[in-house]
């Protein structure tokens, strides 16, 4: 608990070029809102937690981060939405 106060919770990082998506298993409750609202099926729920399954499809729309009620997913990208490839 005190370690977390100084260092923060453990994050699971997935990178793809400049794009980084972090998930926080300790905060994630597996509600599936991020999965439902992702337009590109980047995310999945596996063992009750969010999993970044297809980061290559991510267009940095930020819907998952905006809509996650639990602070369990962060999208750090280039700031530009990637065009559909």
């Amino acid at each position: 608990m005190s370690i977390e106060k100084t260092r923060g919770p453990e994050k699971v990082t997935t990178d793809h070029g400049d794009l980084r998506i972090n998930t926080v298993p300790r905060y994630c409750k597996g509600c599936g809102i991020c999965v439902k609202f992702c337009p590109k099926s980047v995310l999945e729920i596996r063992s009750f937690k969010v999993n970044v399954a297809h980061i290559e499809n991510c267009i940095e729309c930020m819907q998952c981060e905006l809509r996650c009620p639990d602070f369990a997913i962060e999208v750090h990208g280039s700031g530009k939405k990637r065009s559909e490839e």
Partner: protein
Amino acid sequence: MAFDYSRYIRPGKLPHIWCPGCAHGIVMKAILRAVDRAGLDKDRTVVVSGIGCASRMPGYVDFNTLHATHGRALAFATGVKMADPGLTVMVVSGDGDALAIGGNHFIHACRRNIDITLVVLNNSVYGMTGGQFSPATPHGMLATTTPYGNPDYAFDVVELAMGAGATFVSRSTAYHVLPLEKQIAEGIGHKGFAVIDALCTCPTTFGRRNKLGTGAEMLLWLKDHTIGLKAAENLPPEKREGKILTGVFRQTAKTEYCEEYAKIIDRVRGA
């Protein structure tokens, strides 16, 4: 771009107590982004709440926070604001807290036009206590204390606030994350009493009992059953039927209560 919420969250307090799929976390994030947009000084910001799921919010956020008694948040907040009008005072309250037991304080805060921003996290149920109906529960819906369907009718929070004289009244939903954030920021910036009716969801009690689906599905329900004020203007009545209006309903200027009282102080001290 990721928004750094850690600036506004007290270390070591997450994960919060709200259920999987509960929209309160979404509204909390919108509030934090709005606070950031408004450029508030954390030391000079106070967040007050009553009792209920929504009212657990202050414990998580890094401001001066007051988790008061059921329904009385606005009254505590009034004392805080009057004692130091320079503080930015926000109140977060559930629909039961704000409209049932807190109903009297709701209408008087509106009437008084004191510079407080109230966000009503309206999921039309008493979630914390297991799912009883509230003054925001629609007619016919099921709750633990309306097992045969609610015989009662719900308040329209916007109409109530406007009728009571509030000078900033808006409604958005936990689906409409960016308009919600914008309305809250506007409410914070508004000099006077601001009410934001933030429609959100309780999948665990209300959703389950009324078979409304998952948290995600209930958010999509909010999307499908609401319509913006401007959009509604251009639609024929049949198209608007059954849809809840969202947007900024009123934004007027009127002397704020503490300012009015400060004038009294100046006048009597000068005399």
